C-alpha cells in the first residue's frame, strides 16, 4: 500500500538528501544539492512508472493514485526537471548557489503530486498549501534584484488571501454535506442547498483560479514572473498550473459534477477575458519575462476553453495542452539564459538581437518554440489548440473557438518580435555591454532548448503519442 506513494516518498527523500548534502559541505554544497535534486526527480519519475495503482485509492479514498494523477505527475516532474536543469545555469552566473532553492523545488513538487491525487477536501487543501508556501520563498531568491523580494511579498499576500477564500468555499461544502470526501460530498450537494453549494463552488474555484492566473485573478502573475529568478519562473508557470488544473478538473467534474452547466459557463466567460487580456497586454511588453507572464495568462485562457467545452474530447485536449505547454514555456523562458548581460541575464527582447549568428541551432529552436506558442503547425502547440478548438466546436461553442483562433493571430505579433530580434536584427555595432556580459551561448541551455523544440516538433507531427495516453488516463 505504501508502494502506491512511492513517487512522493522518493521525492521527499531526495529533498531531505539534498538538504543534508547542502548543509554538510562547506564549498559547492549548493551545486551538489542540485544534482541530488535532479537525480531525485528522475528517480521519482521511475517510481511513478512502476508504482501500483490500487483501485479506490488510499486512506479511504482521500488519496487517488489513478492514471489521471499519474499523467499529471509526469507533467509536474518534467516541469521540475527542466526548472532544476536551468537553475544550474542561472545560479552559476548569479551565484552564490543557494542549495535551498533545489530542495524547495522538490518540496513544492511533492505538494503538487499530492494535489493531483487529492480525493478529499483536507488532502486538497494541505497539498495546495504545501506547494504554495515554497513558491513564495522561491520567488524571492534573486537577492541582487529588488524586484524579486517585492514579487515574493506580493505573491505571498495575494496567495494567502486566495487560500483563505478557497478554505471558506471548502468549509461551505463540508458544512452542507458533512463529508470531506469528494465523491461522498458530491452525492449530497445540490437540491435544496443549491444556492449555498454554488457559493461554495465559486469560492473554492476562486482560490484555484488565482493559481491559474485566470483573469481577473491574474494580477500577481506579471510581477511574480518578472521578479522571480528565470528557472523559478519556468517552474511556477508550468508545474503548479498542471497541478491546479488537475485539481480543478477533479473538483469540477467530481465534487461539483451536477453543476456542470453553471461551471462551464463560468469557464467560458473566464476563457474569453483571459485570452484577450493576456494577449493584448503582452503586445505592450518589451521585457521577455513580463511578456511571457502575460503569454502564460493567455495560455491558461486557451485551456479554460477546454473546460468550458467539457466532455471527453475536451478532457483529452486540456491534458495534452498542459503537457505541451511545459515544453513551450520552459523553452521561452530558457531563451533568457542563453546569454549573460552584466551580473544578470538580458531580459529585454532587444537582448536577443543577432542570435542567429552566434548560434543557429538556438535560433532555430527559438523559432520552433515561438511557432508552437503561437499555434502554427507542424508544432505541438498547433495540435494542442486544434484539440481545444475542436472540442469547443463539437459543443457548438463557435464564439469561443473563433475567439481562441483570433487570439492566436494576435499573439503572433508579440511572439515574433522575439523571432524578429533573433533572426532579422543585428545589435548596433560598438554597443557597450556591461562588464561580465558574454555573447557566447551556453551549450547546456542550447541543448535544453533544442530538446524542447524537438519535443514540440515530434508532438506536432505525432500528437497521438501523448494524446492517446491522455485520453486513456482516467
Amino acid at each position, binding site marked *: 500500500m505504501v508502494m502506491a506513494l512511492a513517487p512522493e516518498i522518493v521525492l521527499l527523500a531526495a529533498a531531505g538528501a539534498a538538504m543534508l548534502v547542502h548543509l554538510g559541505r562547506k564549498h559547492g554544497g549548493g551545486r551538489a544539492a542540485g544534482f541530488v535534486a535532479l537525480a531525485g526527480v528522475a528517480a521519482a519519475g521511475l517510481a511513478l512508472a512502476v508504482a501500483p495503482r490500487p483501485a479506490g485509492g488510499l486512506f479511504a479514498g482521500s488519496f487517488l493514485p489513478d492514471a489521471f494523477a499519474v499523467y499529471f505527475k509526469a507533467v509536474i516532474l518534467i516541469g521540475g526537471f527542466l526548472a532544476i536543469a536551468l537553475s544550474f545555469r542561472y545560479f552559476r552566473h548569479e551565484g552564490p548557489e543557494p542549495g535551498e532553492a533545489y530542495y524547495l523545488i522538490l518540496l513544492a513538487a511533492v505538494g503538487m503530486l499530492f494535489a493531483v491525487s487529492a480525493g478529499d477536501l483536507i488532502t486538497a487543501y494541505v497539498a495546495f498549501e504545501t506547494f504554495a508556501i515554497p513558491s513564495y520563498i522561491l520567488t524571492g531568491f534573486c537577492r541582487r534584484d529588488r524586484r524579486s523580494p517585492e514579487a515574493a511579498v506580493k505573491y505571498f499576500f495575494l496567495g494567502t488571501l486566495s487560500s483563505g477564500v478557497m478554505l471558506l468555499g471548502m468549509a461551505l461544502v463540508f458544512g452542507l454535506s458533512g463529508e470531506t470526501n469528494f465523491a461522498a460530498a458530491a452525492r449530497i450537494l445540490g437540491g435544496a442547498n443549491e444556492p449555498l453549494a454554488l457559493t461554495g463552488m465559486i469560492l473554492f474555484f476562486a482560490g484555484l483560479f488565482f493559481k491559474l492566473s485566470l483573469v481577473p485573478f491574474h494580477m500577481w502573475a506579471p510581477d511574480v514572473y518578472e521578479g522571480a529568478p528565470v528557472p523559478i519562473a519556468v517552474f511556477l508557470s508550468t508545474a503548479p498550473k498542471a497541478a491546479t488544473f488537475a485539481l480543478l478538473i477533479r473538483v469540477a467534474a467530481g465534487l461539483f459534477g451536477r453543476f456542470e452547466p453553471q461551471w462551464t459557463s463560468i469557464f467560458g466567460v473566464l476563457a474569453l477575458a483571459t485570452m484577450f487580456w493576456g494577449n493584448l497586454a503582452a503586445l505592450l511588453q518589451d521585457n521577455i519575462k513580463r511578456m511571457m507572464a502575460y503569454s502564460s495568462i493567455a495560455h491558461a485562457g486557451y485551456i479554460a476553453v477546454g473546460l468550458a467545452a467539457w466532455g471527453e474530447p475536451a478532457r*483529452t485536449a486540456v491534458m495534452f495542452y498542459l503537457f505541451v505547454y511545459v515544453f513551450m514555456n520552459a523553452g521561452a523562458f530558457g531563451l533568457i539564459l542563453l546569454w549573460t548581460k552584466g551580473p544578470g541575464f538580458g531580459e529585454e527582447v532587444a537582448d536577443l538581437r543577432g542570435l*542567429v549568428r552566434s548560434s*543557429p541551432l538556438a535560433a532555430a529552436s527559438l*523559432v520552433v518554440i515561438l*511557432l508552437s506558442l*503561437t*499555434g*502554427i*503547425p*507542424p508544432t505541438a502547440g*498547433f495540435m494542442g489548440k*486544434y*484539440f481545444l*478548438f*475542436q472540442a469547443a*466546436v*463539437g459543443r457548438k461553442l*463557435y464564439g469561443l*473557438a*473563433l475567439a481562441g*483562433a*483570433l487570439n*492566436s*493571430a494576435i499573439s*503572433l*505579433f508579440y511572439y*515574433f518580435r522575439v523571432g*524578429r530580434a533573433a*533572426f*532579422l536584427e543585428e545589435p548596433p555595432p560598438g554597443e557597450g555591454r556591461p562588464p561580465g556580459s558574454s555573447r557566447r551561448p551556453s551549450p547546456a541551455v542550447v541543448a535544453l532548448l533544442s530538446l524542447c523544440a524537438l519535443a514540440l516538433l515530434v508532438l506536432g507531427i*505525432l*500528437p*497521438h503519442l501523448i*494524446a*492517446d495516453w491522455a*485520453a486513456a488516463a482516467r
Partner: protein
Amino acid sequence: MPYLTLITFFPLAGIFVLLAIPRGRGKAVKVAANVVTGLEFVATLLLLPGFDPGTAEMQFVERASWIKSAGIQYLLGIDGISLLLVLLTSLLTFLATLSSWKAVTHRLKEYYVFLLLLEVGMVGVFVSLDLILFYVFWEVMLVPMYFLIGVWGGERKLYAAIKFFLYTLFGSVMMLIGILVVHGHYGTFDWTAMTGAGTFLPAALQTWVFLAFFLGFAIKVPMFPFHTWLPDAHVEAPTAGSVILAGVLLKMGTYGFVRFSLPLFPQASRKFVPLMVVLALVAIIYGALVSLMQKDMKKLIAYSSVSHMGFVMLGLFALTPMAMKGAVLQMVNHGISTGALFLIVGVLYERRHTRLIADFGGLSSRMPVYAAVFLIMAMSSIGLPGLNGFIGEFMILMGVFPVNWVWTAVAGLGVILGAAYMLWLYQRAMFGPLNNPANAPLPDLSAREFLTFLPLIALAFWIGLFPKPFLAVIDKPVEKIIRVVRPETVPPALPQAPPAEVR
C-alpha cells in the same frame, strides 16, 4: 510507389543536404539548391505520363492513417487542376532559385533552406486532400516566406514581413474554425469522402462556414478589401520571393475556392455570387487604376496582380464551365507572366539598385534581348492574342457574358486599362532617349538570366497558340465542380448552349 509523397518531401531532403554543407562553401550551397529544385521540377514532370486527363477523379491517391483518434488522415491526390499548379510551383521555384544566383549574397544557406521549405509547403497545399493536412501545409508555408521577406527584403522589410504573416494568419485561423465545423457535419476531414457524400451542410451553417473559408482564401488571393498586404510584401520581398508570392502563393487562395468553397458549399457559393463578382470587378478596375499611378515598377506589377486575380475570381464565380476553365488556366498564366515580370524587374534592380520607372528610359537600345523578353511578357500580361494571357481572359469574358453582359463590359474595361498601364510602363522604361548616364553601361541579359526566361516564354507561346493539352486536363475536374455548384450549367434566363470551346 508513393509518388506524391516523394515530390512533396523531396525539397525537405534537399534541406538536409544543404545543412550538411560546411560553412563558407557558398557556391556549393547554390549548386545544391539549384540541383534540388531542378530535380524537383523534373520529378513533377514525371507525373504526366501516368496522369489520365479523361477523369475528374483524384489520381495518385495515397491514404494512410495519421492521427487515428482525431480521424486525421495523410491523404494525397491530384486532379488536373492541382497537377497544373504543382507543375507551376516546381517550375517557378526552380526559376526563382536560378535567378537568385547573384542577387543573394548574404546568409546563403538560410536563404535556400527557406526557399526549399517554402516549396514543401506549396506543393503540399496542392496535393493534400485531408483538410487538416491541407491546413498544416498552408501554414507551414508562412514561416519561410516571413523570413525571406524579413531577411533579404528591401528597406521596409520588417514591416512588410510581419504584415504578410499577420494578415494571412488571421485568415487561416478563421478557416481552421471553418474546417472544424465542416468536420462536425461530415465526421471526417477527408475531402473525397465529403464530395462523395452527396449531402451538404445545412444552408444556414454553410453561409457561415463559407465566410470563414472566404477570409482564409480571400486574404491570400487577395480580393479587393483584403489586398493591402500585397503591395508591401511584393515590393519588399527579394526577387525570388516576389516571383513565388505572385506566381504561386496567390494561386493558393483561388485554388482554395475551387477545391473547397465551391464543391463543399454550393448553396452558399451561389448565394454569394453577387458579392464575389462585385469584389472581383472592383479589384479589376481598382488594381488597374492604381497600377497606372505607380512610380515603382515592382509596385506597378504588384497592383496589376490585384487586377488579374480579380479576373480569376470573376471567372470562378460566374459558375459556367467556360469561365471556370478560363479562370483555372488564367491562374497558370498569371503565374507565368507575372512571375516573369518580377524576374524582369529583378534583372534591372540587380544592375541599378533602383526600381523607379523614372530612372530608366531608352533601355531597348542597350539591352535588346532584355527588351524583347520584357515585351513578350508585357504582351502576355495584357492578353495579346497568340500569347497565354489572351486565352485565359477571353475564356473568362466569354463564359461570363451569357450570365451577365454588364460584368463582361466592366471586366473588358479592365483589359483596356491593363494594356494602358503595361504599355505605358514599357514605353517609359524601354523607349525614348537614353537620358540617364547611369544606364549607359548596362549589360544585356547573361546566358543564365536568359535561361530563366526561356521556359516562361516557351510556355507563354505554347498556351497562347495551342492551349488544348492544358485545357484537356482541367476539363473534367471543372465540369465536375460545375455539376455540383450549378447543375443546370447555364442560368435558366439564357438557355442557349455554352459557346464552342476555344481551341
